[in-house]
Structure formats: C-alpha cells, structure tokens
C-alpha cells in the first residue's frame, strides 16, 4: 500500500491535494474570521444604536448595577480629582502588558464616577488627569470582583474593586465605572462648547468590552464546510491509491494466468 502511495503519480497528486487542502483551510479560517467579525459588528451596531445618555439618568449612587447597562454608552460631566487616581496592574491591551489608569470623576451632580481613562505600559507613566470641567463619554461597566495577591505599591489596586474605592475616595460612588472613549473640555456653562483634549499623554484608550463575542453561525458553518471539503479531498486521494493498490495486486495475481494478463495490460 505504501509502495503504491509512493508512486510518482500518487505523490504528485498528494502534493496537489495538500495544496488544495491548505487553500480550503485558509478559506475556512477566513470564513471563521468573517463569522467573528459579523457577530462583533452586530453587537457594536446594537450598542451604537442606543444614544448616549447621561450617567445620572440611568444610575443612582450605590444602586446595584443593572445588567442591561453593560457597555451602555454614557456621558458624565465634572472634574477629575488628581489625588484620587489608581493604577490596576496585570492588564493587557493589544497584546501588551500594562496598567489601567482609573481616576475619580466628581460629577456636576455630586456623585463620583470612576473613569478608566486608559492604559499605560508602566505605572510610573500614568499621566495626571486633565484639569478643569470636562465631559467624558464611554461605555459603562460594573465594578470588578476583588483579586487577592501580594501587597502592591501605593496607588495600585488589583482590580477595579468599587468596595475599596468607596472607602478611599470622597463622596457617593456609582456602582459602575466607565471605559472612557473621549474626554472633552467644557467651556462655559453649557456643554455645547466641547474641545477634544489634544493629548492623551501616553494613555491608550481601552475599548469597552462587549462581553462574550459570539459567532455568526452561518459563517461558522461555511468555515466547517471548507474544512470538510479538505478532508474529502484527502479521502479521495486515499481511495484512489487504495484502488490502484488493489488493481496492481490483481494484476500480479493475474500474471500467473497469461490469458488474463493480456486483458489487464490493455486496461492500464
């Protein structure tokens, strides 16, 4: 059988089949990406379809976080308190390890909203928050669970644990924090004159997590189909080799009887 498979004819075909399989594999992977993409797009589109609302209109301080507010786009206007800023270690963004920078935003209405302003690769690089009145827009998220571990340097927290922050920071705390997507300086009394802050001072925005991103099942099924086609091509090759192997064994057996030998030679 192996000797049959190693015939140049079958080896050549195997190379062809493997190339085809590789092509099918890539097509399948591409479809899988499309499946993820379109699922993500659907989720983002749903999130975007909801208009930005002010945080005080959907949440009250100390109120338990309602699940349906996850990733909800909210805005809050107030000022940052530079002394109330923590960094959260062991975070990742685009494959890089680093820290989240979380700062207390004292809203105009009074309550304090923790704002995840961004990501830095080194805690020492966490910039001071911008001065003055500003409006933050971002995705809402519930506080994180406490994480235990060795003691951390001052100003660091293992997770965005609101139970810890409520004791460290002044004022009433919202039971939520915001993944800031934009910070705009507010000039004047109303929020009409907004100026996008020109410099993030090394901060990278952290996208609002959309939760488990599912798959678009239609595209995932296409991916599976391509992979099954690849397996099918391999099976075809194996069947042809097996047939050839059987035929050559028959021929060998037939060679003993000359009358059939002629016929089989003609068939080849």
């Amino acid at each position, binding site marked *: 059988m192996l000797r049959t498979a190693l015939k140049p004819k079958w080896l050549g*075909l195997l190379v062809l089949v493997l190339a085809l399989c590789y092509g099918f594999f890539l097509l399948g992977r591409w479809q899988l990406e499309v499946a993820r993409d379109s699922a993500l797009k659907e989720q983002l589109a749903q999130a975007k379809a909801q208009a930005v609302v002010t945080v005080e209109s959907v949440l009250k301080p100390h109120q338990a976080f309602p699940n349906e507010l996850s990733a909800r786009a909210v805005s809050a206007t107030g000022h940052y308190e530079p002394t109330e800023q923590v960094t959260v270690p062991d975070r990742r963004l685009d494959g890089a390890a680093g820290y989240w920078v979380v700062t207390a935003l004292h809203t105009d209405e009074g309550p304090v909203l923790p704002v995840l302003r961004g990501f830095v690769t080194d805690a020492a690089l966490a910039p001071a928050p911008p001065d003055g009145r500003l409006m933050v827009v971002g995705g809402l998220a519930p506080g994180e669970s406490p994480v235990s571990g060795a003691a951390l340097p001052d100003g660091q927290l293992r997770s965005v644990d609101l139970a810890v922050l409520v004791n460290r920071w002044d004022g009433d705390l919202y039971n939520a924090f915001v993944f800031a997507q934009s910070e705009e300086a507010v000039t004047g009394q109303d929020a009409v004159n907004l100026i996008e802050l020109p410099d993030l001072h090394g901060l990278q925005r952290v996208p609002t997590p959309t939760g488990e991103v599912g798959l678009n099942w*239609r595209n995932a*099924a*296409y991916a599976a*189909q391509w992979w*099954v*086609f690849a397996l*099918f091509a391999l*099976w*075809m090759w194996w*069947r*042809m080799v097996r*047939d050839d192997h059987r035929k050559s064994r028959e021929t060998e057996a037939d060679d003993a009887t000359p*009358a*059939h030998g*002629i*016929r089989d030679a*003609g*068939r080849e």
Partner: protein
Amino acid sequence: MPGENEGMTANQPEITDVPGTRTRLTFFKVMAFIVGIGLLVLVVEMVLSYGFGMKGDDNPLHWWPQPHGFIYMVYLVATALLGFKVGWTLPKMVGVMLAGCVPFLSFWVERKVAREVEAQLASAAAGSVTS
C-alpha cells in the same frame, strides 16, 4: 471471455458488483436531483441578495446557502462512491462534481451519467450471462 470484453474495457471498465453499483447510482441520481433544485433556489437567493439588495433577514431565502453547502457535500460523496465503483478517471469525477455547481448542468450531467452507467450495468449483466 477476454475477447468480448476488449472493446468495453478500453474506456469503460466492467462492473463486477451490479447490485452495489445500482444502489450507488440511485443515491447519485437522488443527490444530483436535490443539488440541482437546491442550486436553482440558491440562484434565486443570490438574485434577491445582489440583484434586489435584500440582505440578511430581508431575504426570505437567506438561510438557504448554508444547508445547500452540506447537501452539496453529500452530492460529492455520492459522486465519489459511484465514480470509484464504476472506475471513473479523476478528471471525470471532478468534472461531474463541479457540474453540481452549475445551474441546470447538473440535470444534464445526471442524465448522461445515469445512461452511461446503465449501459455498463446492462453489458455487465449480458457478460455474466455469456460467460
């Protein structure tokens, strides 16, 4: 009788397992018919999708391409099973498989193939009588 088989075996190997071949031929014919119809449905789906811009849920047939892919796969298996049984060459097998992707061609190929295999079966039956 080697002399009698000479003309046949030049391009059509003789069939040894007549009932097995018949089963596979029937399976192939059924699958070719289903794929042929499915393909026409797919064409309608594509016309609605690309011609009339009915994307996603707007398209009453948007769910069809996916099961059709699986049906086509069964057609491939049916073609391979029959092809191996009656000794088709690889190009012929691939040709018949690809015919399942062309609207209306699958019906024509199915008839042509079925007639061919029927002839082989008939001569195999005749051969078994004479020998």
